[in-house]
């Protein structure tokens, strides 16, 4: 007998368990935790992009009401603490390691971006701490700043880090240049395109926060923090910065209100509050205000590229050459170096059979906030480049843009498919997702809609992107060989309690993704325990054995697979207990969704009979088996996963104002097996909102002195509900071949696939204006300039 109503298992749109808590204001975020005797920290931040610190005078601040301490970078240096570590090492073309300058927790000698922490004021209230922070006098010798990559690379540019020549972090490449040059030599047509991938500011709903505590009795530190990966923070902060052993350091990431990558990294404030809590033996809390978020959360994207595509006379791609400059910001954030390399250049084959690819990436330091992974991380940059290039190639070869894509698609029977840039795709069907999307978007009927719009005085355009991404980030051995200083497996513990309810401990972390529901559905599906009796525990190093956290759409593919492995162990043990209880051979025991059966008989035991026997082992194979029913598994996958699909955007431009309105958006994604269709739809829609944000609205702008001009919501355009069109989301599944669930990942596809679809649509709408290059975001002012003939200017 099935104890599970089937609608709770894999494929059911179970309503999100966690939303009852969130919608009723019962979520517990880092800033909601308050402790007896808690102090508040306010960070003194550099107002300059580049300056030498001649001195920091804290005397007046230290005497102010409520102030308990004021610490500076020099105080931290006295305690011989480490700097903020970088978790990924890239090697230059010549084999030498990248430049990896120190990243002090608080600057003692030099500040390198607006917002760089210099000191911290700690007081009884947040306002008192802020008052004291304002009273800290920092004597700056302002230095010329390099706010853009162009400025940083110029001869005679300001030196941001001593010993880093030309502000170049690394000069890396991938692919066979000689073979590529041959391919170009034989090409019938070469299409080239200059592209800028605009810099973005993540803006999670919940600003970052951190609460440090120190227990004088046990010598244990506890940090509550807004993190996507508490174990990683424990490792990096404990081992590299504060030198606290893991056994004395607990990191808790409770409810977290969005991350999008920006909460992966180990940030200065986490170390500051933990260290200060130890020094003062009192809890210390810091919570960012939105202004601080803009100038201290890692930013995303920021590439300048030149791409060249070689084609034969039939439009078959012969080769791709890419030169990219990637902005690292002032320091290397935790995973920054891998984003424009292994998460970018390896994706340049996309969905196409390009036989040879060469990509060179120069990573550059600038006097700006560090740049790191942001939803999609590298893959949106690759996809934008490739899918824009395909449209330009179509135009310049005279081949229809859909047809050109079809001619170059990897065919369904070519999997596993080895690309020339290291990746081996396991499965996919790009024709199918394209066909399904074309039908759903009524691509064929577009010209009629365009004509109708023209009658209304509007310019209508349609565009597509047939993207691919690599996620489920992954195999430890592979990432290790590519420079990762960590493993990328995941951990799952299944604890079946005596009365049959289940607690799952997972190393993945949910900050909006709905794990408490999706993961519970896996247990419901496999063990037959109702979703209501499955609790997911995550985000606490004191509870969960270990974990690498959530990013790169890895939670289900890697974390879910670990749970599946642990459940296999539960079932194997359960079978032995069942065999004992039913006096049968273990080989004869079958298990299906909560019921153990002696094959071919009606003798059964429910999971709860087994768990009772396991915890009350009166009648139990005690000579062969330990009591209890709890299993842990580590899962390290064999490969990345490769979601892909087709996004189609339809836009309308008001030629009088240049305003682009999204009128329709269609997404058909292959995310592998769908566990909860409603959650997948939500994830894809959210990603598309961010992709449309990048394409039409968002951009981070620094002035030449390194001041952040788009430093608030008044100037940084976040997408709002009325900026977004009706979004049709559908899936077309091919299973991942190497993980037990067949899942690929859905967290980033929206943000990866959509920007080029939108820009291709805008360029299509402007087809009578001869637009070739269009950098994001396509703001009204930029579009108006194009329409009014200022084309060259806007295109730069």
């Amino acid at each position, binding site marked *: 007998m099935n104890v599970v109503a089937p609608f709770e298992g894999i494929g059911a749109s179970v309503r999100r368990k966690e939303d009852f808590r969130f919608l009723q204001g019962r979520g517990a975020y880092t800033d909601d935790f308050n402790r007896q005797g808690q102090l508040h920290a306010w960070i003194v931040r550099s107002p300059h992009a580049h300056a030498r610190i001649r001195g920091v005078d804290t005397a007046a601040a230290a005497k102010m009401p409520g102030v308990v301490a004021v610490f500076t970078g020099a105080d931290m240096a006295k305690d011989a603490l480490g700097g903020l570590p970088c978790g990924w090492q890239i090697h230059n073309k010549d084999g030498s390691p990248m430049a990896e300058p120190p990243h002090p927790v608080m600057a003692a000698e030099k500040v390198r971006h607006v917002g760089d922490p210099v000191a911290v004021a700690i007081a009884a209230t947040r306002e008192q701490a802020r008052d004291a922070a304002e009273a800290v006098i920092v004597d700056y010798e302002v230095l010329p700043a390099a706010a853009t990559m162009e400025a940083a690379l110029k001869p005679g540019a300001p030196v941001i880090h001593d010993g880093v020549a030309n502000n170049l972090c690394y000069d890396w490449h991938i692919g066979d240049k000689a073979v590529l040059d041959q391919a170009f030599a034989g090409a019938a047509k070469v299409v080239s395109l200059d592209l800028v991938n605009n810099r973005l500011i993540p803006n999670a709903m919940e600003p970052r926060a951190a609460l440090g505590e120190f227990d004088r009795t046990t010598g244990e530190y506890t940090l509550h923090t807004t993190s996507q990966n508490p174990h990683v923070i424990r490792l990096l902060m404990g081992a590299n910065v504060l030198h606290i052993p893991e056994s004395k350091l607990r990191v808790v990431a409770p409810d977290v209100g969005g991350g999008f990558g920006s909460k992966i990294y180990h940030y200065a404030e986490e170390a500051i509050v933990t260290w200060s809590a130890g020094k003062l033996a009192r809890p210390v809390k810091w919570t960012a205000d939105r202004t601080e978020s803009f100038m201290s959360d890692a930013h995303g994207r920021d590439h300048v590229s030149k791409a060249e595509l070689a084609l034969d006379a039939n439009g078959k791609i012969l080769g791709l050459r890419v030169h990219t400059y990637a902005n690292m910001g002032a320091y290397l954030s935790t995973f920054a170096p891998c984003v424009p390399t292994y998460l970018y250049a390896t994706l340049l084959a996309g969905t196409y059979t390009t036989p040879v690819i060469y990509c060179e990436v120069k990573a550059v330091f600038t006097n700006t906030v560090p740049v790191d992974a942001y939803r999609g991380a590298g893959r949106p940059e690759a996809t934008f480049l490739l899918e824009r290039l395909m449209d330009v190639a179509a135009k310049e070869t005279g081949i229809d843009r859909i047809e050109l894509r079809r001619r170059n698609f990897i065919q369904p029977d070519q999997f596993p498919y080895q690309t020339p840039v290291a990746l081996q795709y396991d499965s996919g069907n790009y024709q199918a997702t394209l066909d399904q999307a074309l039908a759903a978007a009524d691509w064929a009927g577009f010209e009629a809609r365009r004509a109708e719009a023209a009658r209304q005085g509007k310019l209508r355009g349609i565009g597509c992107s047939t993207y691919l991404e690599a996620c489920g980030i992954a195999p430890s051995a592979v990432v290790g060989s590519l420079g990762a200083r960590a493993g990328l497996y995941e951990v799952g513990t299944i604890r079946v309690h005596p009365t049959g309810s289940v607690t799952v401990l997972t190393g993945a972390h949910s900050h909006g993704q709905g794990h408490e529901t999706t993961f519970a559905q896996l247990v419901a599906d496999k063990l037959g325990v109702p979703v209501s009796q499955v609790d997911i525990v995550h985000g606490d190093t004191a509870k969960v054995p270990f974990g690498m956290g959530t990013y790169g759409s890895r939670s289900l593919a890697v974390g879910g697979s670990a749970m599946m492995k642990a459940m296999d162990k539960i079932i194997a043990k359960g079978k032995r207990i069942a065999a004992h209880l039913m006096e049968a051979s273990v080989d004869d025991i079958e298990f299906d969704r909560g019921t153990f059966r002696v094959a071919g008989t009606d003798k059964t035991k429910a999971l709860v009979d087994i768990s009772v026997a396991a915890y009350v082992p009166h009648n139990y194979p005690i000579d062969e088996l330990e009591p209890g029913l709890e299993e842990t598994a580590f899962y390290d996958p064999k490969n990345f996963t490769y979601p892909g699909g087709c996004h189609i955007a339809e836009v309308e431009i008001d030629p009088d104002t240049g305003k682009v309105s999204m009128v329709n958006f269609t997404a058909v994604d292959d995310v592998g097996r769908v566990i909860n269709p409603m959650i997948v739809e939500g994830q894809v829609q959210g990603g598309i909102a961010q992709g449309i944000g990048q394409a039409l609205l968002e951009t981070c702008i620094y002035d030449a002195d390194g001041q952040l001009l*788009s430093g608030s919501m008044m*100037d940084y355009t976040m997408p709002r509900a009325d900026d977004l069109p009706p979004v049709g989301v559908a899936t077309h599944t091919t299973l991942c071949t190497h993980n037990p669930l067949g899942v690929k990942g859905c967290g980033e596809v929206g943000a990866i696939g959509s920007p080029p679809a939108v820009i291709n649509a805008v360029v299509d709408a402007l087809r009578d204006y001869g637009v070739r290059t269009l950098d994001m975001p396509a703001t009204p002012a930029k579009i108006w300039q194009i329409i009014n003939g200022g084309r060259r200017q806007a295109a730069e």
Partner: protein
Amino acid sequence: MYDFAYHKPATVADAVKLLADPDAKAISGGHTLLPALKHRLNKPSALVDLSGIAELKGIRKVGNAIVIGALTRHVEVATSAEVKAAIPALAYMADHIGDVQVRNRGTMGGSVSNNDPAADYPAAVLGLGATIHTSSRKIAADDFFLGMFTTALEPSEILTAIEFPIPEKAGYAKMKNPASRYVMAGVFVAKTAGGVRVAVNGAGPCVFRQADMEAALAANWSVDAVAGVKQAADDLNSDIHGSAEYRAHLVTVMAKRAVAAAG
């Protein structure tokens, strides 16, 4: 926020007395002042909360004018049957300020006293040739808006009401700044007993009248009449959202739309 004293007077006279302290500040809806305080951009000694002053509230028709109390919230103007009947363009303008929360809190008096170059109200006040009533005098719209965030109000003077003459017709159109959703360029046109008036907001450092458009519309009230009038880009705002040239172009576009809306 820095510490400040808080007063809630019941009469205009008491409020004016409290505002004699040069560092004290009036607060109405707080939608502009509170964010500034939170960012510590402002350090008033005291806040004088006007919200308890009954005489600053309400919408009345007086002769051929609509008189709106300073404390009237945007939502009240937007939904007032009297305003909608007499000056639909004014109700429309109020209904398109910010978002629902902003319209539920923000007040006409706060908006007009603040004279944000990108705010909506100043265009309506100047475009309709309204008269501003204060705690001590009456000021014509043409003499009120002096420059960016600057008005003819003395430091301790309170805007109490605005008298909007009912026009023959009026219309308003704006292009929003994509980020802040304040006005990037807006135009309020009105055909009034005193002649045609065209006020431009958002585009420049302060709301201003567009004399060429007024002349064109006086000669021929039509969309085509303003379509040919170009706004000079000199002195207009230029920022990361758009150049002065773009704003100048938008002024003509919005003028056409405002005239079309006025009918």
